[in-house]
């Protein structure tokens, strides 16, 4: 889609990557599922993320059938849904976050059906109003761009594209054609949180994608430690950490899926450790 036909976006994502460049380091992108284990606790976590060192925040919109995710994120989606999370509530959380933070980019991540059910136009309108800067919708490849990608770009909401090791040089231009915001490189074949990441092939892949685009490239899937976060944030523009954070939530819910008083603090402490790792990265 020609840039001229795109609506103006919030500018928060590009501003954040510019700032990281000035700092000379890679960024930290954190993922948690909205409403996991409940609305209040997850909002407390989200509000605390920027101070803990998150540079970009991804919020998962829970879905009953997260086909591309591993056991940790599946379980977190179910905890959230069991506790009554809906897409409308997730948008409200985005709004509540945005009221206290006007700079940290906020990206919603999930699957298409809840959005389709909510109504694409209504969703884009509400997301923009709630201060959402970008979308990652796992089951919408470029072949289905008419569904949400094009309308999102027109509405000025970034549509962030996934690239994977199976996305070869022939396919990359197709994947990148309507990409905006940044590119999310899924570093290993498989589902979230089940295999460990290695830095060398990642650096190669990032270089390969950079030959096709000027957009920042973030890398995720399989990062668990501050050291890994540091090395990935040196190889790419940012490291994404999801399953490992979600597991910290899981560790601190009881058998009925209820949060403990210290749940949010414990998750944020872990994010702080990852952030310290990322702050040692050099770009």
């Amino acid at each position: 889609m020609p840039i001229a036909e795109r609506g103006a976006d919030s500018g928060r994502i590009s501003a954040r990557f510019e700032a990281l460049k000035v700092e000379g380091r890679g960024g930290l992108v954190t993922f948690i599922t909205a409403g996991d284990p409940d609305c209040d606790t997850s909002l407390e976590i989200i509000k605390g993320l920027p101070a803990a060192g998150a540079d970009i925040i991804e919020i998962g919109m829970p879905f009953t059938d997260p086909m591309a995710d591993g056991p940790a994120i599946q379980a977190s989606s179910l905890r959230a849904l069991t506790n009554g999370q809906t897409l409308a509530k997730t948008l409200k959380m985005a709004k509540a976050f945005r009221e206290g933070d006007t700079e940290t980019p906020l990206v919603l991540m999930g699957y298409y059906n809840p959005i389709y059910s909510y109504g694409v136009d209504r969703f884009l309108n509400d997301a923009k109003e709630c201060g959402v800067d970008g979308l990652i919708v796992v089951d919408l490849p470029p072949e289905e761009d008419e569904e949400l990608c094009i309308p999102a770009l027109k509405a000025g909401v970034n549509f962030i594209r996934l690239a994977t090791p199976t996305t070869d040089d022939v396919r990359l231009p197709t994947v990148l054609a309507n990409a905006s915001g940044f590119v999310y490189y899924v570093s290993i074949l498989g589902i979230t949180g089940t295999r460990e990441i290695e830095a060398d092939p990642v650096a190669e892949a990032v270089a390969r994608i950079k030959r096709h685009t000027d957009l920042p490239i973030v890398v995720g899937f399989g990062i668990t430690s501050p050291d890994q976060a540091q090395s990935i944030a040196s190889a790419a523009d940012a490291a994404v950490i999801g399953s490992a954070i979600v597991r910290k939530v899981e560790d601190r819910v009881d058998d009925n899926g209820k949060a403990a008083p210290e749940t949010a603090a414990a998750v944020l402490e872990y994010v702080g450790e990852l952030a310290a790792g990322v702050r040692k990265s050099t770009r």
Partner: protein
Amino acid sequence: MSDATAKANSYRTGPDEGGHFGLYGGRFVAETLMPLILDVETAYEAAKADPGYQADIDYYAKHYVGRPSPLYYAKRITEHLGGAKIYFKRDELNHTGSHKINNVMGQILLARRMGKTRIIAETGAGQHGVATATACALFDMPCKVYMGSVDVERQSPNVFRMKLLGAEVEAVESGSKTLKDALNEALRDWVANVEDTFYIIGTVAGPHPYPAMVRDFQSVIGNETKQQMLEAEGRLPDQLVACIGGGSNAMGLFHPFLDDESVTITGVEAAGHGIETGEHAASLTGGRPGVLHGNRMYLIQDDDGQVVEPYSISAGLDYPGIGPEHSWLKDTGRVDYVSATDKDALEAFQLCSKLEGIIPALEPSHALGHVMKIAPDLPKDHIICMNLCGRGDKDVATVAGLLGVEL
């Protein structure tokens, strides 16, 4: 009539290039899977153009599966119901006991052409899993079948059959632990093993090209029926009836007849305890368009777009979606979709066993349940052909339990 108008008036030209049947179908998958699905599509197009591929399919259909399956006049049921003349298309006589093997042979021959060395599949009732495990034994390929742990419990004879055939059966504990979760898990396996693995989907759903490909493999049912009916009656049937889970046996019977206007076509979904109770698996009657498992289709979901776990006495019909081509055929009005309850199916199961000496699977028992409702009021020269797509051995224990009989 010019070719162009003939095409425009046909119900048999779908899908379009993007895999759409009207609003439905498509390729709603993660980027990781996209290159694989494009590969399957390319390989399938090439295979279709190669007479050797069809010759292989025909060879195994005849010598291994046992096709053609008979078209049988069900005289005693016809007389008992006292109206329409009822025929059964006997796909329960196929090797492994259902229509599922028609599709599996087509896909495994394609997988071999593509040089894939490992097979995965999902299964609900276990019939597709058994058919896949069987073909993998035949071609000496490792096979992993994903099955929800709830289904592993209620279809244990099929679990043992798969293991005897050398397959690994993985009990899926995620989500609601039934067919939809088995499908999720199989997709996850495929994403992680893209190099060597071929995923044999068991019904006319999933991302393009699966719905069209599975339909093509199952169309042997309808093509044979057409010919056999002309031999038996000198004309086409007045009505076709088939049960619908994902929709493959029904699509296989229906598709060759879609442009024969004189033929009424009826699909029967599982109404479980009754549509009004909310405990059913009737996606077309009780669902609305949604996106799951790589395609848009009618889907049983809540107001938030979350998938609702369906219910049916029959594990093979217990799926919250339905193939995209059926979804489209419903909207066009070409096919009527109705439903039958657990109770209807149980009654039909017993009647067919007693009157015809055929123990049907619980899935086609739903189709027969509907036939029992409509046949008495139809004239004697109204010919119904019903797809008897599976045999009931696997269901004997379930039915005994429901009838209060201890085995």
